[in-house]
Each structure stands twice: as structure tokens, then as C-alpha cells.
């Protein structure tokens, strides 16, 4: 019994941390603070996944989102090095308020649909539910075609990002410092 109480307590804690992190992410003016709040959100979602008996996905959440995607965001934020005056202006507050009300209505609609659904108790699952071995077996036995298609997608995205982010595709990058052959007393 105490095991289940502990699990429920941690679910509530992680859920509130996730909501808090999500709110901070969309409300900070500086993207750096948003990215740091996103770490909190990803970590909390990883905890929720762990409580929902998906240990492999919880680890993947940390490795892929907090480890790869967030580092990509931080790299780009630091590469841009936005100063305070470059952050641009925000939308006027009546528009933001209107959007907030619209999103609250969206959440209300979703919640109304969710609360009408039957709430079944969680079935008991074995200790290897969602383990890396089981997920891997399922992925390579039943879902191998989507897996292969995703690899093609990632290849296309990789090449697309390189093409988009490279400075000059058609000319070679200029040399850093042209060799100064006419300088006085060149050290030949």
C-alpha cells in the first residue's frame, strides 16, 4: 500500500512540475530562460513516464529531449547571442489575453471529453513491462517498417539542416587570414 501511495505522491509532484515548467517556457521573455524551464518540463515528463511503467521511454525522454534537442536549442540561442533590444516586441496584451482565453476554452473542451470517458483501474503489469528488451523486441518484430522510414526521415532532416544552416553552398568558405606575401620582413 505505501508503495502505491508513494507512486501517487510522485505523480502529483511531477505533474505539477511539468505544468509549472510548461507555463514558464511560454511566458519568459528571454529564450534562454525558456530553454532552462524546458529542462524542468522534460525532466518532470520523464518522471511521469517512469511512474507510468515506461522506464525505457523515460530514459529516452531524458537522452533525446534534455540531452539532444535542448542542447541544440541552447547552441542556437548562444550562437544568435540576442541582446535585450534584439529580442523584439511582444504581441499587445489584449491579444495575449484573448489567446489565453481561447486556450483555456480548448483545455475545457478536452477536459470535458476526458472526464466523460470511463476510468478503468490500471491493470497489473509485470516488471519487464516497457523495458528496453521488450520495446526493442516489439520494435524490430512488429514495427520494423516505421522504424526504417524514420531513419530515412532523419537522414533527410540532417541534410536539410546542413543545407539551410551553411553560409555559402556554392562557393568555398573564404580563408581565415589571407597569406600576407608583401609584408615587410616576411619571415621567409
Amino acid at each position, binding site marked *: 500500500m505505501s508503495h502505491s501511495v508513494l507512486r*501517487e505522491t510522485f505523480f502529483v509532484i511531477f505533474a505539477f512540475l511539468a*505544468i509549472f515548467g*510548461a507555463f514558464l*517556457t*511560454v511566458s*519568459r521573455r528571454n*529564450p534562454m530562460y*525558456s530553454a532552462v524551464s*524546458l529542462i524542468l*518540463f522534460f525532466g518532470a*515528463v520523464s518522471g*511521469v*513516464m517512469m511512474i*507510468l*511503467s*515506461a522506464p*525505457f*521511454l523515460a530514459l*529516452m525522454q531524458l537522452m*533525446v*529531449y534534455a540531452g539532444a*534537442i535542448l542542447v541544440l*536549442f541552447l547552441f542556437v540561442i548562444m550562437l*544568435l547571442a540576442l541582446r535585450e533590444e534584439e529580442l*523584439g*516586441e*511582444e504581441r499587445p496584451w489584449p491579444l495575449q489575453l484573448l*489567446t489565453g482565453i*481561447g*486556450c483555456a476554452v*480548448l*483545455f475545457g473542451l*478536452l*477536459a470535458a471529453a*476526458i472526464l466523460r*470517458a470511463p*476510468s*478503468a483501474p490500471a*491493470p497489473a*503489469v*509485470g516488471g519487464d*513491462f*516497457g*523495458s528496453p528488451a521488450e*520495446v526493442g*523486441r*516489439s*520494435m524490430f518484430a*512488429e514495427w520494423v517498417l*516505421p522504424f526504417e522510414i*524514420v531513419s530515412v*526521415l*532523419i537522414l*533527410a*532532416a540532417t541534410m*536539410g*539542416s*546542413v543545407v*539551410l544552416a551553411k*553560409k555559402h553552398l556554392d562557393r568555398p568558405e573564404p580563408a581565415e587570414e589571407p597569406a600576407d606575401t608583401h609584408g615587410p620582413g616576411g619571415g621567409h
Partner: protein
Amino acid sequence: MLTLQNCLLLSALVFATGVFGVIARRNALIVLMSVELMLNAVNIAFVAFARFYPGTSQSVAGHLEPAKAPAGHIFVLLTMAVAAAEAAVGLAIVLAWFRNRKTTDTEEMRNLRW
């Protein structure tokens, strides 16, 4: 407390927050982060459904048994791959845009060429 409905409510709230970020913010980086929020909300819903309705899978011997790795888990992994690809391409676009226009404001992104 740990019911399917509560997990789905968490998912819906995070999704609505992401929608707010996409619509109400003008900084392209924060818009991309809000898209990540929405994708994560869907992941929470997938994992919750996988936990409460695991379904069955065919065992090696050929008979049906409760699934140990439901389809929802596989879907979450595929979503993560798509999210990573989306983030890479989106950030590359933001970077190329900033190099040309010195801004990350989505209101300035009105034309395809200049």
C-alpha cells in the same frame, strides 16, 4: 489519483499551454519550444493509454498474451525521432533567417525571398 483521466488532463493542459505559446509569442525560438511542448503532451497521452490499456501481442509460441511493450511505446519513440528532426530543421531555418535579417521575430517572416 493516478488514473487515466488525470494523466490525460495533464496532457491536455500541457497541449493547451503549447498552443498558447505558438499563437501568442513572436520569438521564433520560443514558438519552436512550444511545438516541443505540444509533442510532449501527446507523448504523455500515448504512455498513459499504453499503461491503462496495454492490449495484447502475439508471443513467440503464437498465442495472445498481455503486451509487454504496447504500440503506444513504439509510437512515442517515433514521435521523439520526428521531434528531433523538426527541431533540427526549424533551428536551421531560424539560424539562416537571423543571418539575413538579424531578427527572430515571426512577424517579420512574411516573404519567401527578398
